[in-house]
């Protein structure tokens, strides 16, 4: 098993190289004038020229790539045009908020999506299945940003049940930073009031973000459960007199998990993409909001830095998923 994990880690290296190559090409080869993008729209001609020389943008692309990689290895993702801070430091500041949001959404998805998917598969073509199907079709068809706005309109403006923006009330101060997740940090600090406040702020964005992903999750669980329930070994298990509960929750579910986690890992990309929009709507100070703000100010280095970090995270998640897959599936254990 250990050798499998090591091999899997090694196999991720070319993928990451590919990711850096593509990010490099997007930032250096696609734009008409990369230098102009790096300095920003308000810069003078001379400043553009200076940057061109300074960043070696007049050199051939392969050499530029080496420079770029060298920078990356030293943690240099470029400098933000807006505040002239290193992009990496900005992203690091915003990272915990995004992590808190995505983890909360992931939890919601799994907690609701898996039972719902099983329910739909077991009661296939009955009422429970139809209701689940309607919920999930609406889920995959809803524009996240619009859903967020509608939630704000209803639960914040009209009903006033939940706060509509930020991670805490404006007047509150953040709990002492240990994990960077306010809910967790507040609990660690023993401040239940603050925990409740952070949780209330988290609910709307987390629900908004999870809904799309939840729909995808439900569909996968449903279809892989149906596939598993149609296998010969299910009939064998029935012929051996095992109970329906055992057959569904043990025999079929463990098999259905194998395709489920693969696709769940792939769909994590949708969660990351959705985070961009959700954070924007709910003024959630995470990387997603940061990148949209960067787009408004045409802060190109910030955009590319975010792209790289988000993709690396995505590759990392799928790496974990692969390892989990090997743990669940005896057929590919080495």
């Amino acid at each position, binding site marked *: 098993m250990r050798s499998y994990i090591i091999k899997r880690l090694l196999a991720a290296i070319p993928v990451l190289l590919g990711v850096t190559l593509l990010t490099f090409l997007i930032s250096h080869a696609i734009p008409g004038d990369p230098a102009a993008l790096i300095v920003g729209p308000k810069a003078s001609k001379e400043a553009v020229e200076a940057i061109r020389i300074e960043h070696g943008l007049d050199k051939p692309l392969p050499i530029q790539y080496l420079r770029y990689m060298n920078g990356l290895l030293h943690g240099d993702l470029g400098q933000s045009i807006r505040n002239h801070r290193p992009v990496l430091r900005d992203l690091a500041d915003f990272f915990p908020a995004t992590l808190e949001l995505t983890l909360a959404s992931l939890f919601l998805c799994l907690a609701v999506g898996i039972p719902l998917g099983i329910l739909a598969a077991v009661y296939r073509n009955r009422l429970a299945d139809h209701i689940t199907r309607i919920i999930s079709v609406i889920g995959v068809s809803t524009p996240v940003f619009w859903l967020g706005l509608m939630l704000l309109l209803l639960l914040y403006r009209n009903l006033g049940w939940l706060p509509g923006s930020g991670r805490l009330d404006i007047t509150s101060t953040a709990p002492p930073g240990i994990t960077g997740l306010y809910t967790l940090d507040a609990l660690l600090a023993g401040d239940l009031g603050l925990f409740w406040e952070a949780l209330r702020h988290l609910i709307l964005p987390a629900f908004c973000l999870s809904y799309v992903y939840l729909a995808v999750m439900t569909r996968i669980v449903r279809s892989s459960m149906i596939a598993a329930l149609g296998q010969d070994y299910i009939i064998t298990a*029935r012929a051996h007199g*095992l109970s329906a509960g055992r057959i569904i929750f043990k025999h079929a579910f463990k098999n259905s998990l194998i395709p489920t986690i693969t696709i769940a890992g792939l769909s994590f990309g949708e969660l990351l993409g959705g985070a961009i929009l959700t954070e924007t709507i709910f003024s959630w100070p995470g990387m997603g909001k940061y990148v949209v703000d960067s787009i408004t100010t045409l802060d190109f280095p910030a955009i590319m830095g975010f792209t790289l970090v988000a993709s690396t995270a995505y590759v990392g998640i799928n790496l974990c998923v692969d390892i989990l897959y090997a743990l669940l599936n005896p057929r590919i254990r080495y």
Partner: protein
Amino acid sequence: MGFETHQGPAHVLDRVSLAVQKGEILGLVGESGCGKSVLARSILRLIPSPPGVLLGGQILFGDQDLLKLSEKSMRALRGQQISMIFQEPMTSLNPVFTIGHQMREVVRTHKPMTKAQANAFCCSMLATVRLPDPDNVLQRYPHELSGGMLQRVMIALALACNPALLLADEPTTALDVTVQGQILAILSELATAQNLAVIFVTHDMGVVAQLCHRVAVMYAGQLVEEALVHDLFAQPAHPYTQGLIASIPGQTPGQLQTIPGSVPSALQPPSGCRFHPRCPKSTGHCALHTPQLLTVADQHKVACHQAHNRASV
């Protein structure tokens, strides 16, 4: 033991009546799609409904009607008193659990045993089907064993609780000839030893001739002939059975006898005798009237107008 069923809307089984005694191996023969597997599965009520609907009839196990049992008592029966082995040993076991895990689970469902007891019991079961190194086999996953070995595991599992009836659904079709021989030998030996009633579903007349005591021939969802194995091969009464035996190659040199046409669809079976469009002896009467399954000689029943006429003359 006896049963009598028919299913719809595509009448996969039409008024099939059969009986098996203790210690007897009954061969159920027919070509693909004739309903022989469906029949075997309906006995254990494994046909999902929808789409399968049992329109009528009864399945008597001893004096219990299986069709009237609750799902719970049915479950207690499955694996315990009636068990089943299947055609594809490779897919009949759950790929993500070890053989031992799955065997123990079944054994402990039916018998109060500790894990260690169950393990020892499974080991002894594997030994009775002559699997070498049972301890090791228990720790393996299904994909690590060959088809022949898996089929032995399936047999061991099926016989673990000393059932009274074993349903074998083409258990050797997916195996090589030399391995098939081994499996058939084990089955026949264990059936005798445990005084089992076996329903052996197959399309291979050779296997039937070698293994079974009695044979039932099915065609397009209906039973067309039933006889002791010697009588069936010596004096097949139904033209379909005759054709089936004559079209086995390698029997006699020279021309191979053929049955013209192909197996009809279960959705639109022919009228009257379902075999009449392919039958060399059919008359106008056959197209209109469905023949009954009637006794023509001792323990020999056939559903054919011509055979009935001959018998009554």
